[in-house]
């Protein structure tokens, strides 16, 4: 049992980090960023290049991933999303744009980094073993803690910094924020950059454990969508809760339902559908009306 919870917590920490960026972008711009998973993969490949190819330290790799992705995010918002949002009649049109960007990044990743699975050497060796009740490799513990630290830093930033508060105001009510004198364009761009950066950092962190390959983008996006739906779309605490819940569900589900084999994921997904059908705002989303 302890092992299952430990696994769930570790998975939850990494999921939460992935979901955060997505929910931030969604709350600010009402854009469902289909390319989030690709950004995550790109972050992983950048860290891989820095660490495995250039032989530089792991933390530097994460830093570079975060920065490059932030730059890219800012560019994507300014030159792609902003003009399209401004001119499209239905704002869902941005979904096509986001999907186009996802395809584009897939193509770029394939051309730049190739088709193979990539990984970097373990950052810490050894396995924590508590009497065979909890077995957890040290590198997982380190990465899990780093992910938690990133989540905490993000929350603090959103709560206490000027920029963070401005972005929260923007997420609450775009028009009101505009009236209050918040520079909507500037903070949208900033928020997008921050969201992309979180994806990059998540990718960089996880490349040390799970490795990275170009196929992970799409499925990661979809998983992240599910997490933010569980927690409530556009709510930061919701994304974190959603990440941990999905992590727990997988961990517990895979163990409890192991006897039934093939249906484990079917049950997870089906129950998710039922849950969302009856509680669409998720756990922490604002109730309707």
């Amino acid at each position, binding site marked *: 049992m302890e092992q299952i919870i430990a696994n769930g917590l570790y998975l939850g920490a990494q999921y939460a980090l992935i979901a955060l960026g997505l929910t931030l972008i969604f709350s600010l711009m009402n854009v469902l960023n289909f390319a989030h998973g690709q950004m995550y993969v790109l972050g992983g490949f950048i860290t891989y290049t820095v660490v495995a190819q250039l032989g530089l330290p792991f933390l530097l790799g994460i830093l570079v991933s975060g920065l490059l992705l932030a730059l890219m995010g800012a560019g994507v918002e300014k030159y*792609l999303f902003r003009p399209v949002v401004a001119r499209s009649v239905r704002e869902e049109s941005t979904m096509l744009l986001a999907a186009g960007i996802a395809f584009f990044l897939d*193509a770029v990743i394939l*051309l730049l980094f190739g088709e193979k699975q990539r990984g970097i050497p373990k950052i810490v060796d050894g396995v924590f073993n508590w009497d065979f009740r909890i077995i957890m490799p040290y590198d997982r513990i380190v990465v899990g803690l780093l992910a938690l630290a990133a989540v905490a830093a993000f929350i603090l930033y959103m709560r206490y910094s000027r920029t963070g508060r401005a972005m929260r105001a923007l997420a609450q009510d775009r028009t009101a924020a505009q009236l209050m004198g918040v520079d909507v364009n500037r903070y949208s761009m900033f928020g997008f950059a921050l969201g992309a950066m979180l994806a990059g950092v998540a990718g960089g962190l996880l490349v040390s454990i799970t490795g990275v390959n170009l196929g992970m983008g799409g499925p990661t996006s979809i998983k992240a969508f599910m997490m933010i739906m569980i927690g409530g779309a*556009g709510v930061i605490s919701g994304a974190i809760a959603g990440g941990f819940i999905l992590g727990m569900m997988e961990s517990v589900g895979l163990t409890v339902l192991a006897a039934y084999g093939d249906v484990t994921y079917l049950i997870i997904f089906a129950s998710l*559908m039922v849950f969302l059908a009856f509680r669409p705002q998720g756990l922490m989303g604002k109730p309707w*009306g």
Partner: protein
Amino acid sequence: MTLFKKLLGVGLFLALVLVLVPWLIERSGRWDFYYTLTSVALLSIASAGVWLTFYIGRINIGQGAYALVGGYVSAILVTQAGMNFWLTLPLAGLFCALLSVLIGLPILRLRGVYFAMVTLVLTEVVRLTALALPITNGARGIVNIPLPTELSLFGLTLIPDFGTLANPKLAFYLAAVIMMILSYAVLYRIVHSRLGHLCRSLQQNEELAASIGVNITYLRILAYSISSFFGGIAGASFVNISQSIYPSSFQVVDSVNFMLNCFLGGLGYVFGPMLGTLLLYFGWDLLFTTGKYQLLIYSSLLILLMLVLPNGLLSLRLSRKAKQPAQASPDKQPSGATP
């Protein structure tokens, strides 16, 4: 548009797809275009369904699920009950429509991304169900499905046996195109009849629609089941071209593509999904000579198109006329569910 112009347009289109295209293919010898265009026709039927759910203000990323279900229904009826494919086609559609009523009742209360997400999950649920069920033959899929056989009524051959045809490609093409034309005729009629107006009222303001006495639950279910019907027949037809079906025959990617087809063509235009499918599918095919840069070029073009025409390709036609947005955003606020 006057009636004459309308008829002329329809006539020209029919001549184009039923006569000119086959003639051009015969002349140029590009036989492979038959299959490509058949696919476009069938996929655009499924996309038409997605478009209809857009028309009631729902982003539907679950059409792949119904295409898969439709495919399996047809495959199972043909291989296990020995039914004629042409009879399984409407049955597949009806089965999907019924299924969509059951699924739609709870989930159609959701709006915006919430609905979108649930439908996305639906596609995965159906794939996993197909893997788990015995009747679908699980992971091994259903293969060796015979070609459509003759359909006759009182000894009169309505549709010949595809297995004995000299050119089944042409037959499949014509069948698919005729189905597409019928589907879009239905869609056009829906949109331009009262049902369509009511759908539009739903898209713009569900509460007000309810308060003027529109049974919004019923209407949502109706539109969604028509949509799923389209998905079902498209899926069933595909299965009989590939003569096989696997749980992966229609998956999340397909659901997403159906939705993108609608966006690309334009959500405000009945024929948008048809054009969108043609461009997205055919575009990929045409770019095949660019080798490893195919995806790069394809996605770049997609992004460019979006930048130039954020409201879909058909908005081009509109911008020539007086700017009259045929469609405005429903409430731009992200809303959850109706009570």
